[in-house]
């Protein structure tokens, strides 16, 4: 079961074409779009604002609340709208991937709401969502110690590849998918999930590859954030 050439002709460590834009939602405090290949994620940030119901408030620090959702038209087979077991899990891991860089101590009793919508899906949606959300948070002026970028790596056949698309994910008996989120400066891993069979060495290799991918994403994020002030 060898995988010598990628289905779409990319190199094994080549990321799909990326595009990012900041400030796409006017009424939100911060917003961003992140596209990687055919996967498009939109993120909107509201807050810090008062949190209701009151029992959810934390008088020591603010609360980060993420909501990940796939639009019903984002996949080939219509997705039933509304939260699912999967989207609840992704909302939670996104929250944990971003919470460590945000200075929540400054806003006790408040909430920062992050809404992520996938408008077009072709694998790697949670990673695109995190990359978009990090930009939206920065655009909302929320104090952050670092930026976060995320990318999926995986094992297809016997090769470690970066940024799998849907076709690769379904390759033969299915690929091993490892979404990784990292901070830009410290290269601290803030998200690491794994679905499939790999050896220890392969995981280490995968994280090394992800580091390179996250660097590329961070460059795109920086450019998009600075671009909004460089018009005219």
């Amino acid at each position, binding site marked *: 079961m060898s995988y010598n050439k990628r289905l779409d002709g990319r190199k094994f460590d080549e990321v799909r074409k990326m595009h990012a834009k900041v400030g796409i939602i006017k009424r939100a405090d911060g917003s961003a779009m992140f596209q990687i290949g055919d996967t498009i994620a939109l993120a909107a940030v509201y807050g810090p604002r008062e949190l209701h119901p009151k029992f959810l408030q934390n008088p020591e620090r603010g609360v980060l609340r993420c909501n990940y959702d796939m639009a019903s038209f984002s996949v080939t087979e219509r997705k039933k709208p509304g939260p699912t077991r999967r989207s609840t899990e992704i909302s939670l891991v996104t929250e944990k991937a971003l919470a460590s860089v945000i200075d929540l101590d*400054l806003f006790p009793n408040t909430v920062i709401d992050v809404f992520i919508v996938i408008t077009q899906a072709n694998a790697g949606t949670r990673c695109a969502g995190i990359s978009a959300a990090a930009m939206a948070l920065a655009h909302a*002026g*929320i104090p952050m*110690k670092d*930026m976060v970028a995320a990318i999926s790596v995986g094992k297809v056949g016997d090769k470690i590849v970066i940024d799998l698309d849907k076709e690769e994910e379904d390759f033969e008996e299915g690929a091993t998918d490892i979404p990784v989120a990292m901070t830009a400066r410290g290269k601290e891993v803030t998200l690491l999930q794994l679905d499939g069979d790999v050896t220890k060495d392969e995981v280490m290799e995968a994280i090394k590859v992800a580091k390179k991918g996250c660097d590329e994403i961070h460059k795109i994020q920086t450019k998009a*954030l*600075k671009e909004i002030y460089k018009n005219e």
Partner: protein
Amino acid sequence: MTGLILNEREIVIPGDKIASGMDYLPGNGAFREEEDIYSLQLGLVSLNGRFVKVIPLTGKYFPKEGDIVIGRVSDVGFGMWMIDIGCAYSAILNMRETPEFIDKGADLSHYYDFNDVIIAEVTKVVRYKDVSLTMKGQGLRKINGGKIIDITPSKVPRVIGKQGSMINMIKEGTGCNIVVGQNGKVWIKGDKVEDEVKATEVILKIEHESHTQGLTDTIKKMLEGN
């Protein structure tokens, strides 16, 4: 390598390294990690002696003592009003801080009711959290008529200009009565709707091009244009 890595007025995003070494100190919007100073926000680098600051370009309003703000009554309580001034927390206006004398036990909604819009001054801020307002002072009152537009709070100084030069120019050019709250809310009232529309256009243009040079001339031309 020690010293400043980025120059003044350069745009930074969270996590950008601004300076290295102990010669500089982190101010607002920046923090130190080991030897280096990094940005905490999306903004412009600013130097004040040895202090490295980041002036935010976006974000919510953070109340400061002495700010004139425009707010909306969101709740009427016992002896005070809650005012929504567009920051993370509601501000409190005590009944003793109004220009009118109010009897104990009077119906407070008789003076300021839900959704009334007021101009007030921030008197006390504790950790951004407890914000107190007063309405005793010149020009502080309930406002009627006109329209309110929202701009980014960090761009308010540009709309006002040096000693109010920009805002006075707009007032003269359009004949409108304009009050700019530090929280990014701008109240515009003119005799004619066209005047208000004109003033709105001009203010939104300033907000959009606040970081460019020669803005005053552009606005002057725009006001004289028609």
